[in-house]
């Protein structure tokens, strides 16, 4: 009877241990899957944000270009960011989420201060343009005034010469 009780106890203990092991493994599996999903989600979010950051920088360039600034110096940084973003996308497709996040972070880091730089370029161009336009307008106004004033004096000379030439003419009577 004691033997039977011991056997039953051992059987229950074994079953209990088996059940506990299964629960632990199941829990760990779920945690791992959850972490993987979080890793993928984090990578997708990071790459998307980097893409948005790049578009925002592109918009800044377009604004500067709209007022006529030469935006070529800004494109080097944009191109570098674009290349990194392309690599991040490829890493994401490949399932290399850690690298995708790292590259996405590099995109954002590389574009830090970009809006300020573009703003400075646009501002500098605007100031330079205003100065050149004012100079050009000033020269044009002076030039027109000179043409008008000299034109009046010139007309008096031309008119006198025309009248003198007409007066020198000898009329002939046609037969």
């Amino acid at each position, binding site marked *: 009877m004691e033997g039977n009780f011991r056997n039953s106890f051992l059987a229950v203990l074994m079953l209990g241990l088996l059940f506990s092991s299964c629960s632990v493994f199941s829990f760990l599996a779920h945690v791992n899957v959850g972490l993987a999903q979080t890793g993928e989600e984090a990578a997708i979010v990071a790459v998307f944000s980097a893409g948005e950051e*790049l*578009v925002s920088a*592109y*918009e800044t*360039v*377009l604004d500067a*270009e709209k007022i006529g600034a030469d*935006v*070529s110096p800004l*494109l080097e940084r*944009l*191109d570098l960011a*674009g*290349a990194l*973003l*392309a690599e991040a*996308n*490829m890493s994401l*497709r490949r399932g290399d989420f850690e690298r995708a996040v790292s590259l996405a972070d590099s995109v954002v880091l590389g574009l830090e201060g970009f809006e300020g730089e573009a703003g400075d370029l646009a501002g500098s161009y605007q100031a330079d*343009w205003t100065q*050149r*336009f004012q100079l*050009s*307008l000033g*020269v*044009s106004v002076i*030039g*027109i005034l000179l*043409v*008008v004033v000299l*034109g009046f004096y*010139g*007309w008096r000379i*031309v*008119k006198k010469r*025309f*009248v003198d030439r007409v007066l020198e003419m000898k009329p002939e009577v046609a037969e």
Partner: protein
Amino acid sequence: MSISDVKLLYGLACFVLCLIIVSPAIGMIVSLPPGERFSELWLLGENHMVEGYPHNVTEGETYGVYLGVSNHMGGVEYYTVFAKFRNSSEPLPDIQNGTWSPLAPVFEWRFFLVDNQTWEREVTFSFGGISVENNVTSVDRLMVNEELSFVNKTCAFDEEPKGFYCQLFFELWRYNMTVSKLEFHDRFVGLRLNMTAS
């Protein structure tokens, strides 16, 4: 010629002179109407010519072409080029309807060009896992510029011209600020490749 004719000519000459003097200031404000806007996409062979394109490809060999884009859109453009790989049963982009191929890209490039600027890159590619069975060729792997993709394509036999053909093609996309997204720019170029087992 009467005095009034002379007066008119003289006035006209002074007016033209005034226009010439004020033209630099006007030129700073008035801009000429833009010409036709378009983008170019091209593929050149290994010697930078419209020839020498890879055709018969085998496993392990590396092939090269030159991919180029030129911007004539009147301003800075944000371009993306997607490289894709298909067999004859899978869809190509449809330029008539402006739709892109739904296949996943095997490589991509993202870059920015000012007006009239050109971008060109060498594209190297190689294949792995090419096998022929029951008149069908299978391709497991494609490497484009050191980026490995498991494509797992089957290339059926084509009678005209004879061979097991798949296609590596490149789609040009452009960021449209009006709708704030990347759009297929109705351009693609491709290489029809005869997959041969070594």
